[in-house]
């Protein structure tokens, strides 16, 4: 059974129902009472008694009607089928009440005869009994039509709201999934090359091989377990970047040189996890790895106007190869993540204004 079919039984909606039910019938009772004693000058104790009796019956019938439409799942019906069902049900429920009413004191409330007798006695108007009864039945049917219309309108409104809520929950879940996907994933190219380096180092330099394994384990752990936190401090991220760069420099040897310029005041700023790592991987992939003699990779950070400006510079290969000609999935994903996390308040640009250096520049608001 899905949500749309589940009968409403939550205590809160029960309470709302009874408030509506009693208020509705209360208003009808009071209205008729007021009309009866002011316009028609009827004797109020009898009027009140009869009104209370018959409207209580009306309330019971409407309560039973609610049960009936719920059992028969009327709310799942298309509007046209629902409309004529409402009409029929209202007359069916209205008929006995209408007939009974005609033979009580209350008939005067509906019967035009009583008005005319009081306000235009010269007319001598008398309504035939079947017409009088029909009028009473129509009158009661109108009450039930109104009742059912309000009932189904309330249900439609509530369903609309819960659909909207579900929609926004869905949107949020999608956003989360998207974020998880966009987060830099384990780069298999790096992983297998690193393993190959380790294999080589085991013979060349066992101590360095041990160090490489430790760093590789740390990098993997960070990559695999990071999805739990969206944000980390810059210094946390830099630690893992340092491990990564150390592994890459074992691979590239003297082709890779690294410089850091990160002042202490910037180290505590929160940044999206794996984002700097993505930029550094990009700098290696499209810069250092494309150049036979390698070059300098520079990471620098400043905080200006409550904004962290983080830059990763790498030398540019003279003729962009196919891999570096377009911006690449890495930067594109990083930009999408920033948009999801910070909206318009963060930005990432690839500055290619200098002929020999490419700079990835990241701007992130500093949270107080």
């Amino acid at each position, binding site marked *: 059974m899905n949500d749309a079919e589940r009968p409403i039984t939550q205590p809160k909606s029960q309470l709302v129902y009874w408030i509506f039910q009693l208020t509705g019938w209360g208003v009808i009772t009071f209205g008729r009472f007021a009309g009866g004693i002011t316009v028609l000058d009827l004797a109020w104790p009898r009027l009140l008694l009869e009104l209370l009796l018959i409207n209580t019956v009306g309330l019971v019938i409407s309560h039973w009607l609610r049960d009936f439409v719920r059992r028969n799942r009327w709310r799942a019906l298309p509007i046209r089928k629902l409309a004529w069902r409402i009409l029929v049900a209202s007359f069916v429920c209205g008929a006995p009440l209408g007939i009974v009413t005609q033979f009580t004191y209350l008939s005067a409330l509906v019967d035009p005869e009583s008005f005319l007798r009081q306000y235009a006695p010269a007319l001598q108007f008398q309504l035939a009994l079947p017409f009088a009864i029909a009028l009473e039945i129509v009158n009661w049917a109108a009450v039930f039509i109104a009742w059912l219309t309000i009932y189904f309108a309330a249900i439609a409104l509530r369903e609309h709201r819960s659909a909207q809520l579900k929609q926004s929950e869905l949107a949020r879940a999608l956003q989360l999934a998207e974020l998880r996907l966009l987060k830099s994933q384990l780069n*298999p*190219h790096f992983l297998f090359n690193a393993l190959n380096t380790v294999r080589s180092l085991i013979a*060349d330099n066992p101590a360095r091989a041990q160090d490489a394994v430790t760093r590789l384990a740390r990098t993997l752990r960070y990559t695999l377990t990071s999805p739990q936190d969206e944000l980390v401090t810059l210094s946390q991220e830099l630690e893992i970047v340092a491990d990564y760069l150390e592994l890459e420099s074992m691979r590239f040897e003297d082709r890779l040189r690294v410089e850091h310029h990160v002042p202490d005041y910037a180290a505590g700023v929160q940044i999206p996890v794996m984002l700097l790592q993505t930029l550094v991987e990009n700098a290696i992939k499209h810069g250092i790895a494309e150049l036979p003699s390698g070059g300098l990779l520079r990471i620098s950070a400043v905080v200006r106007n409550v904004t962290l400006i983080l830059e990763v510079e790498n030398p540019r290969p003279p003729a962009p190869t196919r891999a570096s000609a377009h911006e690449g999935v890495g930067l594109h994903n990083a930009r999408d993540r920033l948009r999801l996390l910070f909206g318009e308040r963060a930005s990432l640009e690839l500055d290619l204004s200098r002929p020999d250096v490419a700079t990835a520049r990241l701007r992130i608001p500093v949270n107080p």
Partner: protein
Amino acid sequence: MKAMVIDDEPPARRELRRLLTGFPWVEIVGEAGNIAQAAELIGTLNPELLFLDIQMPGGSGFDLLTRLEDVPQVIFTTAYDEHAVRAFKVDALDYLLKPIEPARLAEALSRVKSAQAARTPKPDAVLEQIFVRDGSRCWFVPLREVRLLTSEGNYVRLSWGKSQPLLGRALAALEQRLDPSRFFRANRRQIINLDFIETVELGVNGRLHAQLRDGPEVEISRRQARLFKTKMSI
């Protein structure tokens, strides 16, 4: 067998050298860290086998092969680009995934050895195999399997199996290095592989027409007809 290791990562080169010490018949005559260096060394060292990385600075392993006139046997070594290698339409090729497993290396080398034995010794000038890249596809093309070479401006269209790759060389330059006992200049635009001739007929215009197996009919120019008759002893 003279071999060269081409990889931009020094530890990877050292590792492969170490692995190859188990195969004394493979002699590493040189190594290179990028394709410019590699192209130069291949010209002087004439290796028979290349261990070739795919991603390298300044151009990929494929770029290197398209630069080479004559392509030696190649074993690709790659950390993660095997899909790039597998995308090839080649059988005469092997690839090793880094870190390289010694057993896989032995397997690849035994394949090289048997391929080497199948090659008949030829004068040095004769091309054995060329590497063709046409669009996003690459082929190692053994020339003896090419039935027809057609000049298209500065390019040559190779009719090879079901493929028609375009080679970025002029027909005249290529002709110099084709095996003369196998390839014959039929007319100004075409060179045919004599092994593929099915029938030769005299056309209505008085010219000879050679019907190639799985291929088109090629007209022999009047100038070449006499030479052709001698060659085919008809």
